[in-house]
């Protein structure tokens, strides 16, 4: 894609400045995750009992927790966990959703059976499903990714299934078949490339909801181990001190809200970008 393409992609963001704010927040989160050791003013693990439960002030902008650890530093390091879980879940959803969705659409008989199985999974509320899977698998970061990912695999599969069904009926796919293209060729050259854009939008939403899911699991103590800083863990620990030290709740909570919200905004803007472009691309000039 050339520079024109990039400029074209920026239009929905320019149209809605709040989406630009969303991108900035996300950029901040990524930077925080990458440059955590340099950005964080203190070691997130270091315990200083003398300064425990201090409200936000000059030396500690987000205050300190019950062990005297700096909340700001912990919040910054938590960005890493957030990104890890988010990308892990998206990756899992795609890696399972794409094969199942495409396969089901191209081979209808087996596809119907598979999609009914997916329907069964979809019937579970995603948090309950995640909880159930974590109990079976045991709490750990990797299992948390699988447990949360299973829930979003279902929606991703459905979307890909519907899209592939539609793409399969496109005239250019027929044209390929008429020239002797086999299923492999159709999938690689025609179907997958056309799935990229809708999946990009879907990915941003999944990333957002993965944060919420991960935070919930961490809050219940079933996700990341409590030593590793994550916003959910911080929330869990802050429960006991909610009246004495509300800042312990406020800052991690806001981080979760901002991140998820920004992801939603970016996803919306991406989707707006896609629909008119699809219209232009498919229909030429009006």
């Amino acid at each position, binding site marked *: 894609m050339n520079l024109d393409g990039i400029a074209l992609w920026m239009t929905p963001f320019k149209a809605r400045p709040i989406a630009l704010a969303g991108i900035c927040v996300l950029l901040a989160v990524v930077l925080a995750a990458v440059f955590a050791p340099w950005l964080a003013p203190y070691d997130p693990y270091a315990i200083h009992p003398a300064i425990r439960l201090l409200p936000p002030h000059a030396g500690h902008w987000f205050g300190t927790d019950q062990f005297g650890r700096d909340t700001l530093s912990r919040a910054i390091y938590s960005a890493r966990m957030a990104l890890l879980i988010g990308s892990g879940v998206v990756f899992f959803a795609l890696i399972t959703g794409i094969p199942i969705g495409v396969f089901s659409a191209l081979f209808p008989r087996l596809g119907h059976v598979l999609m009914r199985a997916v329907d069964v999974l979809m019937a579970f509320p995603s948090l309950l499903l995640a909880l159930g899977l974590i109990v079976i698998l045991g709490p750990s970061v990797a299992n948390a990714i699988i447990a949360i990912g299973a829930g979003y695999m279902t929606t991703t599969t459905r979307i890909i299934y519907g899209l592939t069904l539609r793409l399969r009926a496109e005239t250019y796919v027929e044209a390929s078949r008429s*020239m002797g293209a086999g299923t492999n060729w159709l999938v690689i050259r025609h179907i997958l490339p056309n799935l990229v854009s809708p999946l990009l939008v879907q990915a941003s939403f999944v990333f957002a909801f993965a944060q919420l899911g991960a935070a919930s699991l961490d809050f219940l103590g079933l996700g990341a181990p409590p030593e590793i800083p994550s916003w959910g863990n911080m929330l869990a620990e802050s429960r006991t001190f909610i009246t004495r030290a509300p800042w312990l709740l406020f800052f991690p909570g806001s981080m979760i809200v901002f991140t998820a919200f920004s992801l939603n905004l970016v996803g919306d803007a991406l989707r707006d970008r896609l629909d008119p472009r699809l219209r232009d691309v498919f229909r*030429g000039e009006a």
Partner: protein
Amino acid sequence: MSTPTILEIRDLKSSFSVRRSGRKYRVNAVDGVSFSLNQGEVLGLVGESGCGKTTVGRSIIRLLEPDSGSVNFKGSAVLTAGGAALRALRMNIRMVFQDPYASLNPRRSIGDSVAEAGDINRLFRGRAERASSIAATLTAVGLDPSFATRYPHELSGGQRQRVGIARSILPAPDVIIADEPVSALDVSVQAQVLNLLMDLREQLGLSIIFISHDLAVVGQISDRISVMYMGRIVESAAVRTILDDPRHPYTRALISAVPKPDPSRRITGAIETGEPPSQFNRPTGCAYAGRCSMAVGRCFVEVPRLRPLGQEDRLAACHLL
């Protein structure tokens, strides 16, 4: 005609099932069609919507698997071919599609779309050969070779249709099935694309099955015409024979219904010629009998067979001829 027959279709039947209001119906889109295509000729397959002409085209190259019948291409059976043999056949019988906007993948460059048949069958030995083949083909259809790096949304309808034609001649086939190739184009662009097809036919020695609902276009480009109605061929003859002296009642109705660009020959007052019967509820006997002014009892009972008419080089399916 001493020219050899290159494509022979015998008693082709094709159907597909449709869901309407929750019930499943079987639509017999092609109900026993037989014809032959001679080397180097253009056969026009003409009819209105629902007559099965598009399904015939798709059944020949097995985009839709026919239920019964036979298709012979240069002596080899198409319907029973498998694997490599089928791929080879599909290289030799190519299709041009109607909608220039839908027949090209919007995410692939023009060059990639044009070379697709070659890529699928791994014809090109190296990128240089591929690039020069693409350039030569684009030039052959009247487009500048620089179009190879552009994308469909940058091209007009007429240009896209040229790309569709380019795609179908790389590598050069023996037969092209053109499914309404100019119906979606403006009149001035239609003329350009029709000229292109006629030029390519001469240059490459193509035989063409030209499917269309537009009698004027078919009359311009074809050597012979077969008229279809409700899944069957009702009349078949040389183009001038059919257009100047149509015999089958449907052919006559069709020709007289085409609005002629000549105000001195106007139809005054209304003509009611009825509607085609529902595809889900085919009548017994001749499908046209319900609208035919000459129909007699036999027409509603027995399906007329397509047979030669006297001494002329003409086939017609009507009890009264």
